[in-house]
C-alpha cells in the first residue's frame, strides 16, 4: 500500500510578531507583513509532519507540499521546513495574507494538484490544517477536496491508523477533549489535521540539501496563482484579547494548571 500525500500549506507571520491590520489600495492587510519573518502555518505544519511519518511507514509513498504564497517569502520559510522532512514542492505565487477568498485559493490549489504528473487519485490523501493562523476561514481544504472529487473528509484529525486491509481509522477532535473515531475504506480522503501526535522534527541541513534539488526549480517556475483580494471588508480588527507574556521559572506543572484554571474562571 502506498500513497500520494499532498499537503496544502500556506505561510503566516511568525506568531511572536505584533500584528496590526491596515488598509491598502489592494484591500486590507497587515502592517509590514511582507517584511515580517514568516513560518509555515502551524496546523498545516503538523499535517506535513504526519504526512512524512505516514510516507515513511508506507514504502513507495510520496509527499508533495503545495503552497500558495509570495515566492520570496516562501523561499525563506523553506530554508527551515525543507530541513525537517522530505517532500516535493509545488509552489504557486500569490498573496498569503488570509484576506483572499477561500473559493479562489481552493480553485488554484486544486488545479495545481490536478497537474501533478502521474497523479493517481485512488492513492491520493489530501492533508492540510484544520485551522489556520492566516486569519482564513478554515474552509479552503474542504473546498479543494470537493474540487478534486474527494468526498471522504475529516477535520480536526489527531491520528490516522492504516489497517492491514488499507482501511483507515481516524480520530477527530470533538467537544470536551474527546475524539470521534471513524472508519474509512481508504484513499482518497481529505484530512484536516489538528495538532496530531508528532513532535516537530529537528532541522537537518542534509535533508534540506536533498530537498533543495527540487525546491529551487519549483520556486523558479512557480506561476501566479491568479488570486487577489476582491471582496470588500467593512472593517478589520485584531481579536480583543491581548497577549500577556509572563516568564516564570521553577513552577510545578500543577501550580501552572491551577493558575490557568483560575484565570479561565475569572475570564468567564
Amino acid at each position: 500500500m502506498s500513497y500520494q500525500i499532498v499537503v496544502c500549506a500556506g505561510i503566516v507571520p511568525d506568531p511572536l510578531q505584533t500584528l496590526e491590520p491596515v488598509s491598502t489600495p489592494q484591500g486590507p492587510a497587515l502592517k509590514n507583513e511582507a517584511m515580517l519573518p514568516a513560518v509555515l502555518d502551524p496546523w498545516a505544519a503538523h499535517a506535513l509532519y504526519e504526512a512524512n511519518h505516514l510516507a515513511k511507514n508506507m514504502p513507495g509513498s510520496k509527499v508533495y507540499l503545495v503552497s500558495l504564497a509570495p515566492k520570496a517569502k516562501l523561499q525563506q520559510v523553506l530554508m527551515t521546513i525543507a530541513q525537517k522532512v522530505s517532500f516535493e514542492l509545488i509552489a504557486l505565487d500569490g498573496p498569503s495574507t488570509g484576506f483572499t477568498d477561500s473559493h479562489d485559493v481552493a480553485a488554484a490549489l486544486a488545479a495545481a494538484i490536478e497537474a501533478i504528473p502521474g497523479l493517481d487519485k485512488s492513492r491520493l490523501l489530501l492533508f492540510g490544517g484544520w485551522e489556520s493562523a492566516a486569519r482564513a476561514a478554515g474552509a479552503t481544504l474542504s473546498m479543494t477536496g470537493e474540487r478534486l472529487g474527494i468526498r471522504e473528509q475529516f477535520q480536526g484529525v489527531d491520528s490516522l491508523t492504516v489497517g492491514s486491509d488499507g482501511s483507515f481509522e481516524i480520530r477527530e477532535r470533538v467537544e470536551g477533549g474527546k475524539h470521534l473515531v471513524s472508519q474509512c475504506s481508504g484513499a482518497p480522503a481529505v484530512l484536516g489535521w489538528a495538532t496530531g501526535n508528532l513532535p516537530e522534527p529537528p532541522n537537518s541541513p542534509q535533508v534540506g540539501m536533498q530537498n533543495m534539488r527540487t525546491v529551487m526549480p519549483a520556486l523558479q517556475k512557480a506561476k501566479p496563482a491568479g488570486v487577489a483580494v476582491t471582496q470588500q471588508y467593512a472593517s478589520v480588527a485584531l481579536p480583543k484579547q491581548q497577549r500577556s507574556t509572563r516568564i516564570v521559572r521553577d513552577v510545578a506543572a500543577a501550580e501552572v494548571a491551577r493558575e490557568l484554571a483560575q484565570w479561565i474562571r475569572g475570564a468567564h
Partner: protein
Amino acid sequence: MPTTVRTKTATLKTLPGDDVRQIMWRYADRFDLQMLATSARAVARGPVARLVASGARNTHEWTPEKASLLKEYDASGITAAFMDSAYGGYLEGPKNMALSLTAFELAWVDGGAATASLAGCLALAPIHERGTEAQREEYMKRCSPALNPEPARGAFCLTEPLPYVGVETGLLSGKVKIVEWKEGEEPLLEVNKRGRFITNMGFANFVTAAVESADPRIKGSCMVILEETDPGIYDRGGPTKKMVHQLSSTNDPVFQLKIPASRIIGGYQVKDGVIVPHYDHAEIIEAVFRRTRVGVGLMTAAKLLSAIEPLLRYHRDRFRGGESTTPGTPRYDLGLQQKEDVLHRMLEVWATGEAAASLGFAAARIYDELDPIEKEKHRILTEQGTGRGMSAMRALRKLEPDAVKIVKEGGSSDSPLIQYLLLDSVANVLCPATKLWNTGHGANELREAVSLMGGYGITEDCPGFLVQKWTDAQLEATYEGPEAVQRRQLSATMTNEVFLAQFETWIRDLRAIASRIPATGACALATAMQMWLWTLRHLQHAKDADGNKLYQSARQGVTFPMADALCWLMSARQLILDTMELEAKGRDNPSLSEGFDGLMEFYTDLCSIQSARTAGEVGRICAELVFGYNRHTQWNDESCFHRQELVTLEAIIPGIEAVASDVVEDDGSHPSKAGPCVSFTGYAEFQALRAKMDGCVTGSQLAKDRAAESLIAVMIPAALDYPA
C-alpha cells in the same frame, strides 16, 4: 554620476531579518549556508537557551545537561558542517563562512555554546589542514555523526605555559622524545605535556597537541595526536574555574603517553637518523588560527546585535504598568525612548554590532576565496621546488612589486601566485582586525548595552542574557591569541606594500561612494584612511625627540595604536560596502520592497554614525603619534625670543616685537601661559587632513537623530524568541 539626494525621512519598519542579512553578508544564493544558519539558530534559541535559562552556567563542571548539546549539534548538522562530503559532510568547498555563521547563530544566545561547537572543529583543523591522507581518513570518519552514532570528540591543546611566570606564548610546555626505535620499525615516542585552559577536555577522546623536541633525534617542534586509550597518563585534569563561557568544557589536563611516530600530524621523514616532522607546530597553528579567529570575532558581533531587540522592548515598556502611566501618554508609549541619550547610545551599540559583523563576514568570505588559491599556490611552489616556510615567503616576496603594480594600474592577474598575494595580504589584516576589534571594542559596547538595561541588566533574569554576553566577550578577546597578539600581527601585516596599495584604491572607492551618497559618511572615512596612511608613512621614517626610530617592532606604543586605528577603519568601511550591496540588490527583493526606503535610510545613517566615530578615533590616535613623540618646547629653548633679541630685530623687521608672544624677559620671566607654542613645521599636510576630516563628519549627529526616529518607530515582536 547621479547623486542620490535624500529629501524625506523614512524609518525602519521591522528589525532586519534574514532577507537583509543574506544580501549584506553575500550568501543570498547559498541555500546550504542559509539552512545551516537556521538549523544552528533553532539549536541556539531552543536547547541552548533553555540550558542558560535553567542556570546550567552556574557550574564549572561538565554536566550531562551540557553534554546533551553535543547531540544537538550532531543532529542539526552543526558538527558535520566542518566535514568534507567524503566524510559525511554536506557542504562543498571551503567552510569558513559556514563555521562563521554557525558561531554567529549560537553566540546570539550563548558564547560558550558557540565555543563548544568551534572547539571540535579546532581539534580536527590541524589534521584537516596539514594531516596525512591516512590521518584525515581516520579522524574525519571517526568524528563524523553521519558515520558514527557516537562520534569521537577532540580537543586542541597548544598550551601556553602557566600564566604569571613571565614566559612568551611562543614557548611550548609539551615535550616529545623517542623511547624506542627498533631497526626497520616505527619509532615510539613519549609525550609529556600539561595543558591549561583546554576546551572540550572534559570529554575529548583525542587531543591534537603541540610539542617540542626534548631529544636530539627529533628536530624542532610538531603537533601530535594523543588518544585516551594510549598507554600512560591521560588525565583530563580539573575543570578550569572560569567565570564565563560555562557551556563549554575547559580543563587543565596532564598527559604522559607513549604514541607511535605516525601520530605526528603531517608525517615526518628520517634524515641522518633524526626525525624531521614535515610541519613544525607554528606552521600548523598559523594555518588553523588564521581561519578560526574570525569565528570568535563574529561571536561578539552576534551578541551585540542580539542585544538590540531586548533593549528596545525594555526601553519602550519601562513605565508600563505603573499607576500614573496611562496608555496614550508619551511616558507609556515611548518609555525610556523619550530620552535622547538612551537612543543615541543604543545606536552606537547597534552600529558597532553591524560593523563588527560586516568585518567578520568579509574576512570569512576572503578565506573561502583564498583556500583554493592557497592550495594552488602550494602546488605551484612545490612544482618549482621552492619548498615551504621561509623559502616560499622569499619566492613570493619577489612577486610583490608585480602585485603592487597591478593594483596601482587597476588591472587584474591570472597568475594564482599574484592572486594569492593580493588576497592573502588583505586576509592577514582582516582576520586579526576581526579578532581584535570585534571582541575588544565589542566588549566595551556590550558593557554599554548592559548599562542601557539599568539594574535589570546585571541580573540573571535580564532578557537576552546581556550580562553573560558582556563578560563572555572578555574571554573571546583572550582565547586564540589575546589582543596583544593580534596587534602584533597587524603591526607587521598592515605595512605590507601589497595591502597598502589596495588600501589606497579603497580610499578612492569610498570617495566615489561619498560622491553618490554623501550621507553614508564615506567621505569622512576616506579622509580618515588617508590620514592613517599619511601617519604610517610618517612614522616609518620619523624619529622621536631622542632620535630613536618610531615604527619598529619593539615600539608597541606606536605600532599597536596604529593597528587599533586600522581596525576601526576596516570595520566602518565594510559596513559601508555591505550597505551599498543592500542598496544594489535589496530593492529587487519583494520581501524588502515595502519598507526598503526606511531600511536604506537607517543603514545609511548607521554608516554615517560609525564613520564619524571612526574618524574621531583615528584622528585622536594619529595626532597623538604624530606630535606626541616630539618634545614640547621650553622657555629656555632657542624657539623662544629673548627681549633684547627682539629689540634688535625690531630695527630690521619692524613690528616683530608686537606679534611675538613667547618672549623671555631680561629678568628671566615669561608670559603666564602653559608653555611656549610648539612648531608645526613639516606637518601642514597632516593639519590640513585633520581639518578636512573634522569637517567631513558634518551631518553625522543629524544622522543619529534620524536613526533615533527609527528606534522609536520600528516594530518588534511581542516577546523574545528564546527563553530568558
